[in-house]
């Protein structure tokens, strides 16, 4: 009996086959491809594989290496190819995730000339720290906003203007007259409209190149993993302890950075949580205060410009993270006092005993990943 034409291989074995001339296929979706792919690969999403593969690899005796994100889709695809008569098909176990984890080379899709000459971004393009390459990174970036309110408004405007490719907004609220003192992404004519829709209209008017994804739901433990999964970073504009902890724990699980800010009357605070590189929210405050000691802020108010300034600082930190520029505000909490006109800073540390990102938590996560990997393979 002939051995099965399908085998699972390691990234090292894949590299060897590619070097010897095997065809290389990427069977993921275009948005995953845009976040980086192997050099020399051809993108064939699962839905297009059957119809297009013979155009890409016409010789069915030529070895084919196929990968996806983690190795499950590519294994299914490998069997599909074998069924079509391909004689030598290899699926990369662990996919591009394992490939990247082993620090093997990969690349971003070739910079389209349109970005390098787009007059909209001329002031970015002339700066060597941004340039066409940096602008391409911004155009590929996917940023999720939790809330299109006081903090989200200015950050949404400037990140849209900067050409962030995809902006997701989680909000289930509608525009109210009392929002307009600070939530400048909305307008009086849109009172009663869903905030996500109003924000999308403003963004589209400013920069139609931005893709806006509206998530009309409240962030909960049940949907948080799904909501944040597709994004590179999260701008936290939540206003309850519950959502802050829900977001923090999920962001740590998915290793997605969170740009955090809070405002109160004439003051604001800002920091960046980069999972496993710096502290997370639970490193600072493992548990929320009991309700009776949580200071009530419903009647405290806020000067409209305070979330404006803090939201723009969040946008600034987001752009720094995407472009890998400067020193992110990681492990540091910035405190702005509008009345004094002062910025001060305190040092934040990662807590090795942190219930979300401490040593025990990492061990638990590694076990879960191993189990998932074993099931997938």
């Amino acid at each position, binding site marked *: 009996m002939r051995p099965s034409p399908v085998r699972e291989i390691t990234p090292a074995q894949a590299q060897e086959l590619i070097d010897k001339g095997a065809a290389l296929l990427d069977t993921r979706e275009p948005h995953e491809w845009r976040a980086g792919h192997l050099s020399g690969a051809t993108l064939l999403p699962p839905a297009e594989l059957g119809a297009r593969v013979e155009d890409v690899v016409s010789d069915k005796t030529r070895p084919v290496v196929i990968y996806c994100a983690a190795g499950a889709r590519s294994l299914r695809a490998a069997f599909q190819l074998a069924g079509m008569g391909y004689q030598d098909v290899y699926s990369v176990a662990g996919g591009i995730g394992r490939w990247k984890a082993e620090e093997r080379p990969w690349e971003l899709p070739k910079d389209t000339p349109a970005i390098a000459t787009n007059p909209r971004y001329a002031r970015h393009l002339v700066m060597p720290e941004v340039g066409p390459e940096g602008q391409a990174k911004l155009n590929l970036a996917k940023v999720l906003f*939790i*809330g299109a309110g006081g*903090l989200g408004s200015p950050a949404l405007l400037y990140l849209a203007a900067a050409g962030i490719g995809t902006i997701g907004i989680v*909000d289930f609220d509608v525009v109210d007259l009392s929002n307009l003192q600070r939530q400048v992404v909305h307008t009086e004519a849109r009172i009663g409209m869903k905030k996500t829709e109003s924000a999308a209209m403003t963004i589209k008017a400013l920069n139609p190149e931005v893709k806006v994804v509206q998530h009309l739901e409240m962030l909960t433990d049940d949907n948080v993993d799904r909501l944040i999964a597709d994004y590179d970073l999260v701008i936290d504009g939540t*206003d309850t302890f519950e959502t802050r902890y829900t977001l923090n724990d999920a962001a740590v699980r998915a290793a997605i950075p969170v740009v955090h800010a809070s405002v109160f009357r004439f003051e604001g605070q800002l920091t960046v949580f980069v999972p496993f590189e710096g502290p997370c929210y639970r490193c600072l*405050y493992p*548990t929320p205060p009991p309700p009776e000691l949580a200071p009530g802020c*419903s009647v405290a108010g806020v000067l409209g410009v305070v979330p404006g300034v803090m939201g723009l600082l969040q946008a600034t930190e987001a752009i720094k993270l995407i472009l890998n520029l400067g020193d992110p505000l990681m492990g540091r909490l910035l405190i702005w*006092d509008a009345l004094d006109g002062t910025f001060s800073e*305190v040092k934040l540390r990662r807590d090795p005993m942190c219930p979300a990102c401490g040593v025990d938590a990492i061990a638990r996560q590694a076990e879960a990943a191993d189990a998932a990997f074993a099931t997938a393979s």
Partner: protein
Amino acid sequence: MTKVRIPPVLRTQVNGQKEVEASGATVGEIFNDLVARYPQMGEQLLSSDGGLHRFVNVYLNGQDVRYLQLLDTPVAERDALIILPAMAGGATAAGATAGGR
């Protein structure tokens, strides 16, 4: 006397002051002085066993006292203490919305 910065959410406990002066050779002594003059600060800062609440962080010259000697951390006259309790930080009704701020 050491200057203690009071966070906005606790200012009502100290008659609206942004900063108060307190005396003591350690963080604990300074807190005792503070609580003696502003009794309502007591339950906000300290748990029933006299320790610092886990949802309140205290910074001495920008460093978290949890990584120094907690309430036993020595304090000099010109040092600056900052109290930072966890805050949800919304300007809308707390808990009413996510992202409505």
